[in-house]
């Protein structure tokens, strides 16, 4: 099915829907063009290539601050959700502002399909108005003097009143804002405000949606609720999105692709699963929240398994293949051992060890515990510090207490190794 150019077509009347155009059905079962399909009047210039890609490679300097260096390449013509993830001040928001055209980098270039948004050498800088993007600010930035409906319609420009009404209605229905049209922003809850801000951006049918910590200003229940819905809406609108967050849960729940920032640099870029389970260096491991990161040394490699000496203990992990530029892991290699707390099981110490498929059984004792909601974070001393995450219920049923001896059980694949220089 030829869908490549349908994005640029105006919202067509029902009768014009011609098999070639992706359609969805609304609640009444009426076929209608995908809201994402774009409008000629709002987006005057022409045809996009089949595979649009966002390519950004630039440097942004701040007087007295760190240099932000970015290298990004993301598809931008279908649904994809890229998360820029990292601690505050790591350069992820700056990156988003540069992509939007709100900040101008000093070096490099930004391209969107065959459009050049920024090119330092050729002196090209497209202002935000001409990039046809949607940008969502952390605290929504709604216009306080305009009603909800005026806020949403703000960017629609000169289009026929009837179409304007249809498009606003479409987006208010999708985002569950019907009935709030005549309110002022100050009369809305935080979650409603953020949905209005999202509607205001989406109604213009941006080619790329940029979200700067969109949920961080909300209270916890609203945040969780909106997080679930956000991804659903973006999938439905097939919106190519880049989202900035420092919240691990948000990154995991929303992202497909993760770009980890630290100290102004992109440290790792890959699928969310890949980055979270196999961080490339210690900084990334810390940022993605690996609980235990310990120095170790590979003492044996056999049958695809590596034995690592960590302090007085030996651990068994899958032998890493092809790291450090193609070499397989070798004996005597210095490594960081990464273990997530939720991958560590606790067993009460029993006299004769029962058979278990898990490769690692480490005897140690409980040094301290921290309650985290329904979970207990248990800090162990197994000859090296190890953190385990167990349910509060399990902790109580096992009758565990501080200074008790326990066996920490870890499966070999749950141990990730990072080469250390």
């Amino acid at each position, binding site marked *: 099915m030829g869908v490549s150019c349908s994005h640029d077509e105006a919202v067509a009347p029902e009768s014009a829907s011609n098999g070639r155009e992706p359609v969805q059905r609304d609640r009444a079962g009426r076929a209608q063009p995908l809201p994402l399909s774009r409008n000629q009047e*709002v987006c005057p210039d022409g045809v996009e290539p089949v595979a649009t890609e966002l390519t950004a490679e630039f440097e942004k300097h701040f007087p007295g601050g760190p240099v932000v260096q970015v290298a990004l390449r993301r598809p931008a013509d279908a649904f994809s959700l890229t998360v820029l993830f990292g601690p505050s001040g790591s350069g992820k928001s700056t990156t988003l502002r540069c992509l939007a055209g*709100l900040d101008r980098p000093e070096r490099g270039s930004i391209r969107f399909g065959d459009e050049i948004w920024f090119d330092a050498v050729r002196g090209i800088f497209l202002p935000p*108005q001409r990039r046809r993007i949607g*940008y969502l*600010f952390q605290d929504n930035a709604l216009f306080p003097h305009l009603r909800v409906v005026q806020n949403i319609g*703000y*960017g629609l*420009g000169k289009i026929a009143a009837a179409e304007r009404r249809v498009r606003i209605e479409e987006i208010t229905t999708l985002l569950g804002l019907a009935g709030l049209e005549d309110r002022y922003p100050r009369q809305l809850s935080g979650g409603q405000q953020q949905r209005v801000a999202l509607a205001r951006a989406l109604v213009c049918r941006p080619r790329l949606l940029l979200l700067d910590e969109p949920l961080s200003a909300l209270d916890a229940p609203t945040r969780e609720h909106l997080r679930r819905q956000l991804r659903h809406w973006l999938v439905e609108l097939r919106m190519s999105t880049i989202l900035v967050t420092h919240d691990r849960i948000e990154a995991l729940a929303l992202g497909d692709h993760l770009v980890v920032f630290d100290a102004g640099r992109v440290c790792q870029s890959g699928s969310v699963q890949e980055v979270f389970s196999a961080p490339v260096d210690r900084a990334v491991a810390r940022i993605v929240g690996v609980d235990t990161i310990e120095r170790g040394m590979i003492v044996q490699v056999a049958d695809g398994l590596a034995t690592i000496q960590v302090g007085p203990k030996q651990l068994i992990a899958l032998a890493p293949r092809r790291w450090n530029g193609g070499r397989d892991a070798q004996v005597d290699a210095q490594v960081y051992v990464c273990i997530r707390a939720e991958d560590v099981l606790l067993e009460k110490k029993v006299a004769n060890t029962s058979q278990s498929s898990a490769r690692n059984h480490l005897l140690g004792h409980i040094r301290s515990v921290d309650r985290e909601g329904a979970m207990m974070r248990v800090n162990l001393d197994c000859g090296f510090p190890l953190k385990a995450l167990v349910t509060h219920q399990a902790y109580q049923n096992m009758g565990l207490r501080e200074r008790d001896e326990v066996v920490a059980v870890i499966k070999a694949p749950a141990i990730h190794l990072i080469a250390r220089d």
Partner: protein
Amino acid sequence: MDFEAVWVSMQLALWTTITLFVFGLPLAYWLAVTRWSLKFLIEAIVVVPMILPPTVLGFYILIAVGPLSPLGRTYEAVVGRSLAFSFEGLWLASVLYSLPFAVRPFTAAFAGVDRRLVEASWCLGVSRLRTFLRVAFPLSWAGILTGVILSFAHTLGEFGVVLMVGGNIPGVTRTVSISIYDEVQAVNYSQAAMTSLVLLAFSFLALSVTHLVNRKTL
């Protein structure tokens, strides 16, 4: 009361305020939005008339509009009469003299508009000019009104600059504050008292209005 002088003062204040509105607003908006590293110099120049003794400011303006300066010469060549000791010369002097009283409240008002609102508007594809008209202006009208009222009231009460640049030509450059001075010189205290009272009442009214509108928007 010298109604001719009142009329001259009103006209001067009106034209000065209109001029400051037209040229001061863009200047103030630019000052509020720009990240140019040397903008503090422009800010300082805007405020200079506030600090400078009016006679000093008047002296420089007098030189600048006099027949020996390029500006004065050009004006005389084009219009056919001298800029010094004319209403137009006084107008120019008043605009410079009242500049800070318009531009500073304007700038403060624009600076009070959340920059993200402006950026949000840009990202929605709305031009800088339309962003100004649809976001910055409606959100800062109280500060703009304050600037307008202050520059009007300030122009109405100016004395030193008027004396230096305008001379004291009845019906042309003789303003109400100068008429008060003349009455006092002539030991005509009752006339001076009446005119002074009118000016005092007006100033009080103007300041009350500015404080009222600024309180309402808080």
